[in-house]
């Protein structure tokens, strides 16, 4: 008697091999058989007309805090993600001394944009060491977690406030090595570091004060375990990023470790950037190094409101001049009919229909909730105004706290990004799930991979599944995950290949303290199993809590 049989689906096993009609049987949380399965099971999942694939692995998230009150990392699980990697970009919630909590909260808030209540009311902070954090999240997981430990917190533990002031001494580096070793023994999947991030006061995070000798010493410890080094390079300058690729390659070769970097964006303004990065990665792989560029699937958007100056208006000088004034003068300018008429005229004879009409009102702020998701063109028509005038008048009516998004403003050309994602050395990830909560939704990138790149022919179904399952597991050394093979953990997603997608971005207020975040629901996902238990089905989460720290 099996526990579960997923029957009659198109089995796409995560290896990249062609899919085949068949069944997947599960016993004791593991895959017991794949193919034509005979026998009975306590639960049968009918997958007729559906794809049966390994659960997706999201290798770049910031769910560190959310996992303490939401063991499903919603909505990640409903998108078919059965394993998340938190702790990226040098920041994790352990190891951390009690005295350093406030300092770290500031850094996390900068990245995640979570309300303060998330740290003060939503969970009981019981741990200092990494094992303690692991125990705290493991109590209630319905998704698997492979947590990174952050370089900044390791530095903070050893050096205190000096971690944001200076290079480490040899003794401090030795202490960091010992601490990292302890974290890896407690289940960390690797170390993350950043050359870019800042805290809430705009100061560089601790990892940015490290000299190369420190990173080299920590990589030596990663080498003892064969674990991952994740970095955020200076992605705003291609040549510096390429220098970091070379540096990662040296560390990879010297210590025999995998490394990965993100973000990797394709932008019209720098069309040679990603091709140059990939070319350098190819050279370094040819030398035997492992330096995985991690690329997101979703396009980048530009958000703005009139509450703050924005470069969005960088080609509209009059708007720029009005909006970069202090608030009182800005409001006065926007209420001055003579100035407003000129601003509107600057947007063209159609008064902004072409230039601004496709902007989408985001919601979650002072704007009327019913307008969320509508285009400015639609809003303008309903108000009997033109788009430029509606942008100004609606903003004035709500204290300027009305955000708009210009969607698909970068990394948006499918015909360019598709072949990049399909490249054998490009690692699909970088979702940032659980971060940037008040700026944009970081969920549903896996659905978008299928809707935009598989259904439009840039990757095969099998290739796309392998990229975010078997290949990701291989890259990260998650030996038990990523493939539908007997003996592997039974992390499985059942989905409709023709419907899988991300839904529209919407604001919801489900963060502690009624905090807002932008999110996207899933489309086309039928059932998700984690370690053999049904964790999500027919549009609802179940009570299953079978998730583990899976390192």
């Amino acid at each position, binding site marked *: 008697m099996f526990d579960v049989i997923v029957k009659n689906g198109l089995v796409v096993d995560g290896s990249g091999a062609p899919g085949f009609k068949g069944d997947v049987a599960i016993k004791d949380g593991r895959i017991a058989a794949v193919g034509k399965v005979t026998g009975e099971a306590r639960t049968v999942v009918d997958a007729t007309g559906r794809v049966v694939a390994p659960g997706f692995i999201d290798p770049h998230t910031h769910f560190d805090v959310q996992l303490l009150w939401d063991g499903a990392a919603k909505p990640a699980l409903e998108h078919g993600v059965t394993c998340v990697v938190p702790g990226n970009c040098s920041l994790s919630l352990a190891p951390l001394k009690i005295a350093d909590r406030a300092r770290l909260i500031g850094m996390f808030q900068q990245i995640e944009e979570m309300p303060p209540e998330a740290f003060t009311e939503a969970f009981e902070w019981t741990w200092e060491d990494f094992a303690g954090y692991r125990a705290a999240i493991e109590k209630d997981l319905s998704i698997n977690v492979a947590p990174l430990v952050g370089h900044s917190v390791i530095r903070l533990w050893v050096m205190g406030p000096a971690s944001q002031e200076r290079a480490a001494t040899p003794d401090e580096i030795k202490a960091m090595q010992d601490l990292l070793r302890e974290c890896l023994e407690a289940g960390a999947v690797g170390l993350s570091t950043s050359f870019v991030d800042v805290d809430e006061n705009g100061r560089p995070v601790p990892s940015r004060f490290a000299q190369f000798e420190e990173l080299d010493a920590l990589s030596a410890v990663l080498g003892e375990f064969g674990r991952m080094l994740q970095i955020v390079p200076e*992605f*705003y*300058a*291609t*040549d510096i990023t390429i220098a970091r690729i070379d540096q990662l390659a040296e560390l990879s070769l010297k210590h025999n470790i995998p490394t990965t970097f993100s*973000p990797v*964006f394709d*932008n*019209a*303004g*720098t069309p040679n*950037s990603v091709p140059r990065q990939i070319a350098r990665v190819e050279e370094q792989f040819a030398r035997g190094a492992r330096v995985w560029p991690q690329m997101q699937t979703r*396009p*980048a*958007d*530009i*958000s*703005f409101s009139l509450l703050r*100056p*924005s*470069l*969005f208006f*960088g*080609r*509209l*000088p*009059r708007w*720029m*001049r009005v909006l*970069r004034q202090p608030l009182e003068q800005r409001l006065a300018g926007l209420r001055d009919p003579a100035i407003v008429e000129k601003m509107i005229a600057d947007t063209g004879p159609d008064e902004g229909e072409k230039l601004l009409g496709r902007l989408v009102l985001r919601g979650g702020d002072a704007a009327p909730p019913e307008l969320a998701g509508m285009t400015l063109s639609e809003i303008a028509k309903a108000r009997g105004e033109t788009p430029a005038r509606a942008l100004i008048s609606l903003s004035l009516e709500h204290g300027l706290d009305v955000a708009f*998004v210009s969607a698909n*403003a*970068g*990394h948006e050309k499918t015909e360019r990004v598709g072949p990049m994602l399909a490249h054998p050395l490009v690692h699909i990830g970088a979702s940032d799930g659980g971060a*940037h909560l008040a*700026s*944009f939704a970081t969920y549903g990138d896996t659905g978008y991979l299928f809707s935009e790149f598989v259904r439009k022919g840039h990757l095969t179904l099998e290739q796309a599944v392998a990229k975010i399952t078997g290949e990701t597991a291989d890259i990260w050394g998650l030996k038990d995950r990523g493939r539908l093979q007997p003996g592997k953990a039974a992390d499985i997603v059942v989905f409709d290949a023709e419907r899988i997608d991300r839904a529209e971005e919407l604001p919801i207020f489900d963060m502690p303290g009624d905090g807002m975040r932008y999110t996207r629901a899933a489309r086309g996902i039928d059932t998700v199993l984690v370690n053999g238990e049904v964790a999500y089905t027919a549009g609802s989460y179940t009570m299953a809590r079978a998730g583990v720290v899976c390192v």
Partner: protein
Amino acid sequence: MDEAVIVGAQVVAGHDGSAELLVTLRHANGVEAPVQLDEATGLKLMAACGASHVDELSGQSWRRIVE
């Protein structure tokens, strides 16, 4: 003294969902290279250059970035 000069600028989408400024610099040796500034830095550069339109940055000294 030779110094880098801005020879082009455009607004692009940034990693954090904001608009950023992609500036192309021509260095003293003739090499041109892009650098992407976050929104706050880009706005500061425009103000320092007295520019209200990104095209007005062309020809300005890169030294303005620290002013």
